[in-house]
């Protein structure tokens, strides 16, 4: 595996990945006296699968929230696709092409699966309220177009049978899949997944892993994911960031990180040789 200049990177399975999509520079985030993130810097390359790992409380979700624009760091800057990102409101960040799933499911419990996934298309649906009042014509056409796009994703994630079911009635594993569908519906450049495997059994994890890999290879979507399951991380990701107590303690390919002593001490336990 070679590491070229200017962020050109060939993965272990031979894919050629492009330049830097997002760069976090010296990010520090504080909540009153608590330092959630301390001087963190790393980048995410276009088209790669980047894992963020670390023990509980390391600040991984906070990192994702900074990327989403939900938390504004006190120090440091976020550079997205080459230009520094000024303080953006979360919905503006979404319009930049960043979509995410949440650690505790954040689906809209009052709506059906189909409606939930359709909300993922909101950044693409532009007709104004007056056209929608009339419905026939522009609004209806846009609705049909987006419905078609959404149905493709529903097919991809195999949730056709439950599309009209109210989301509140679904079991946990299916809810996670619907959340992924909603994130994918936005056709994002960068997909943030917050513990997508949490609470799943082996089969469900295999399904989810397959979906994530397919999203990355078929749609070319860059993925950053937080995950605890080491097997998943080692298999799925191209590069890994390791965090502990708000600081970065490791950054590199899964193999490099696995052999990093500090990471082992903090997290993986002592290896037996």
């Amino acid at each position, binding site marked *: 595996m070679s590491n070229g200049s200017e962020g050109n990177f060939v993965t272990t399975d031979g894919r050629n990945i492009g330049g830097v999509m997002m760069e976090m520079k010296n990010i520090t985030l504080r909540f009153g006296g608590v330092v959630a993130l301390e001087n963190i810097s790393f980048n995410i390359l276009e088209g790669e699968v980047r894992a963020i790992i670390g023990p509980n409380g390391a600040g991984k*979700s906070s990192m994702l929230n900074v990327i989403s624009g939900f938390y504004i760091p006190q120090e440091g800057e976020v550079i997205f696709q080459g230009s520094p990102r000024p303080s953006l409101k979360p919905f503006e960040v979404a319009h930049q092409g960043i979509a995410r799933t949440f650690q505790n499911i954040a689906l809209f419990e009052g709506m059906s699966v189909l409606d939930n996934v359709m909300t993922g298309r909101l950044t693409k649906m532009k007709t104004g309220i007056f056209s929608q009042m009339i419905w026939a014509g522009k609004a209806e056409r846009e609705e049909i177009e987006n419905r078609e796009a959404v149905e493709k994703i529903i097919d991809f994630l195999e949730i056709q049978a439950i599309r009209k079911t109210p989301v509140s009635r679904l079991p946990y594993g299916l809810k996670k899949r619907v959340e992924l569908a909603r994130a994918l519906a936005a056709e994002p450049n960068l997909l943030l997944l917050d513990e997508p495997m949490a609470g799943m059994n082996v089969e469900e994890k295999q399904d989810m892993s397959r979906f994530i890999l397919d999203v990355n290879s078929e749609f070319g979507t860059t993925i950053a994911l937080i995950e605890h399951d080491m097997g998943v991380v080692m298999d799925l990701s191209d590069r890994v960031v390791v965090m502990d107590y708000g600081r970065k303690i490791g950054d590199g390919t899964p193999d490099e990180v696995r052999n990093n002593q500090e990471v082992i001490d903090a997290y993986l336990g002592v290896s037996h040789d």
Partner: protein
Amino acid sequence: MPDQVLFAAEVMLNGLMAGVLYSLVALGFVLIFKASGIFNYAQGVMALFAALTLVGIMDGQVPFSHLINAIFGTNIHHFGWHTPALLAIILTIMVMVLFAWLVQRFIFRHLVNQEPIILFMATIGLAYFLEGVGDLMWGSDIKKLDVGIPKGMNETIESITHGAFGYGFFIDNLDIFATFVAIILVAILVCFSQYTKQGRALRAVADDHQAALSVGISLSYIWILVWSIAGFVALVAGTIWGAKSGVQFSLSLIALKALPVLMLGGFTSIPGAIIGGLIIGVGEKLFEFLVGPWIGGATENWFAYVLALLFLVFRPQGLFGEKIIERV
């Protein structure tokens, strides 16, 4: 001293007294909200109902006489006896405890875990229901309430201020009495909450229902306790307001006045309810005194709300409420 300043001072003092009465009603809200997360819109009607029951018992009224007469064609209204005030108060307290038990058993036990807005709307329904029951039981005409609270202008203050400023302040004895009662009540409630076992249990329940359950606190016992205390506070508030202006429907509208008090003070803070009440009481009266004449008067109808609204825009949790931190 110039007359205007004296007038303003008198207005402020009266405002403080009115504020104390608002705080009394607001206290009932805070208690229930702290313990169960329910914003009890029916607190005002509880005050009305308590006052109605007190008067009814004291005057020896036959409960539901109107209904009985309509069904059976009879014409009974009174038993013919009069109950002494103290005994009537004790009996009314018992009625309020029964009410607390009924409300807990039949309503809120079934609404555990619902969203706050559903709980709030349930209390609106309860308010209407209780108002209907109160009217049906005791009749909806205005009643006079006299439990022996001193009324009328306080001579001592009048003469002192007359001597000092050349203008005698008109402060009603009733308001002074109410202030003392409120102070004592607050002191008792704060001590109860901080120093007794039940008070601690109450605070535990307010923080986290599940956790409280897991350490063996009986939610239903606590809620009955809380609603009973709120009922007692309602009785005190209802008695004082009722002695002031008669027991009538408008008493229940006081609940509406308590809302801006709570918005200012934060929904979960007892000192907040007091200070919020005082601010609103003084603010209302001063605004009406200074600005009212220019814009037609009767600004007390809305001033409290607008003040609270403006306050909330800048500080959404009120003066003493807990800061709301949202997490994803």
